[in-house]
């Protein structure tokens, strides 16, 4: 098994874990955490491909990862802000409880 395959597998595993969390947890914040995990898995893939790709000096994968980190930060900020707002509004962060599309 080549190192790249190893990294890819780890990434896939992380991704699935994140997805599982996002699918199964009640708490909205934890869903967000799951999504963060998925993002990180993607980053790992990018970096791995950059490292073992044909043109590491082109820095494409690296740049992609850096940008995705920045975007993830923004995403977390807004997402959690929304969660807090929802909590203030509905007094719960339980996703099963939040299924009303209005109000």
């Amino acid at each position, binding site marked *: 098994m080549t190192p790249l395959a190893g990294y890819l597998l780890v990434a896939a595993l992380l991704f699935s874990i994140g*997805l599982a969390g*996002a*699918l*199964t947890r009640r708490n*909205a914040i934890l*869903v967000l955490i799951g999504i963060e995990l998925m993002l990180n898995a993607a980053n790992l893939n990018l970096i791995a491909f950059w490292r073992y790709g044909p043109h590491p000096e082109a820095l494409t994968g690296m740049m992609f990862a850096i940008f995705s980190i920045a975007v993830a930060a923004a995403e977390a900020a807004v997402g959690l802000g929304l969660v807090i707002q929802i909590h203030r509004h509905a007094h719960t962060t339980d*996703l*099963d409880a*939040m*299924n*009303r*599309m209005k109000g």
Partner: protein
Amino acid sequence: MSDCGPSTIVHLLWLIPGLPIVASGIIALLKQPRRRTAATMSIVSLSISLLLSLAAFAHVLSAWTTRMAVERIHSFDVLRETVNFTWIQFGTSNVDLGCVLDPLSAIMLVMVSFVGLLIFIYSTGYMKYDENYTRFFCFMSLFAGAMLGVVIANSLLLLFMCWELVGLTSYLLIGFWYQKPAAAAAAKKAFLTTRIGDIFFLLGIVWLFSQTGTLLFYNNGAGSIESSSLSMLLTQPAALGLTAAGAIGLLIFAGAAGKSGQFPLHVWLPDAMEGPTPVSALIHAATMVAAGVYLIARVYPLMAAGALAGGTTTALTVVTWVGAFTAVFAALIAVAQNDIKRILAYSTVSQLGYMMAGLGMGGIAVGIFHLITHAFFKALLFLGAGSVIHGCNEEQNIRRMGGLKSDMPLTFLTYAIGMLALCGFPLLFSGFWSKDGILEAAQHWSVAKTPLYMLVFGAFLTAFYMTRQVAYVFFGHWRGGKPAHESPAMMTVPLGILAFFAMALGFLGTPAWPWFRAFLDGRAANFAWSGFMEPGLLTLMATSTVVVFLGIGFSWKLYGDRSPKPSAPDALEKITPMTWGWLSNKFYIDEFYNMTVIAFYAWWARVSDWLDRRVWGGVVAGVAWAFALWARLNRFLDNNIVDGSFDKGCDELSVGGGLLARVQSGRVQTYLRILALAVVALVAILIWSSRT
């Protein structure tokens, strides 16, 4: 000069028109009540221009004397200096503008700025009680600047720009008292009439540019009216056996005719007298109307190119005939007018005719000399008339004046001088010498002798109507309302100065000492009594003297010192009512135009109006109606067919939406699940397809 590069004064030349224009701009920005500032500014700027012009004149003069005395070069071109620059550049060809300084422009500069200055000073007195004082001075300085621009222009295009600017200011100033409908109408008339000429002028310019590729007059041999391009132009034939040069010349002449009121475009000039008197003096006597003459002098090489036997060309012949005819024609009309300014206006027209004829027959020098002298004495006469009007509190009809020689002696004196100069009273007055120059030229003209006789007759008429006017105005006894009074020094002093020049200037151009002509032609001027000894000259002088005396005497016999009732018919009318009718109605030219040109336009306007209302209006209405109908139809369809089906469709949709809504549970995780499943499917498909 031109070969050793232009000197400083030429580089400063642009200041001469520049200053007054700037002044007018500033005045335009002033508040209305800033009367004193406005006047001072325009006068100061113009006097600076005058100084500069004098400097330029002196420069040319010294150059001339050195050339003549030392190097003995006899050529017109060596005295010319030009400064050119590129204005626009498109592709390879570019339009140049520039200034030229040569004896012609130098003299014109001095004349224009000097007369202009005097008239400015005069108008500070004349316009004292006008509420639009500042506006007046704004326009005046703008005019002065534009006129000077015309003079120094070395490019037909620049000249045309200033030309139009001059036209504009003339329009503005004729209509200065726009409250008076007459003034407004006159302004319109002037503008439109001159515009007719200007269109031809523009055509000429375009043609010239298309032929020669440049609009500069002089450009060290590459100019449009210098030998190279002239010879090129001569090879180009145009219609009616004219060369391109001649044709362009004639087109330009049409413009000149428009500006300086040559028949048949003279009609605007008399009406232009609706403007304030200083305006009439400056624009419609001394400078602007002379611009046409100046223009012809400027492009003289174009007109004279390819001279036939006897040193004349078709173009010049046309100029001559038009000039001569105008001279007599206008003089005739002037005989039967009663408005003091109108008489002067018609006399101006006729004098311009003289100048044109002079140009046509005798060359630049003759025409321009008369132009200069005329500028002075006609300005003098107008200012005198202004002072008279001022004195008789805005009375303009000479039949209601009389006996003013005692009431306003200064005005009388100066006016008399002007009148004598205009009549060409022998020896003492400038008019005599300049007019004799023209007559002499006519005498030696090879084509025909008729112009000579016409001009002599014109001289007789001139003497006649001027005497009539003076007799009416200054002799006899006062027939008006309130008694007249002398004008303030602000007005009389310029009169005096002008009067002096009206006499003195003549001695620059006596046959014995033809300084002026020599200066313009760039020849040496040397004094010799033998100048009079040329064949036929003395007889000619004698004839014209006799003619003048005849005119004066005849007129005096008719009008002298007997002051008829204003209502009573004119003395001449008693003799020949028929002729009088024709003359007093200006040969019905205006009526003629009314019946032909204007009538046609009115008719055409009515026709297009009718088209507009009936035809196009109908069409539009029809289209609108059709659309309205279509709209009704649509509404019907909407209400009954579309809406119906739409409602049914909506029901369907709402049912389907109800079904879909089940999926939209609002559970984020459900969505996420579906998403994930989709991913799985997608990836699976991808791998599956990529196998083998």
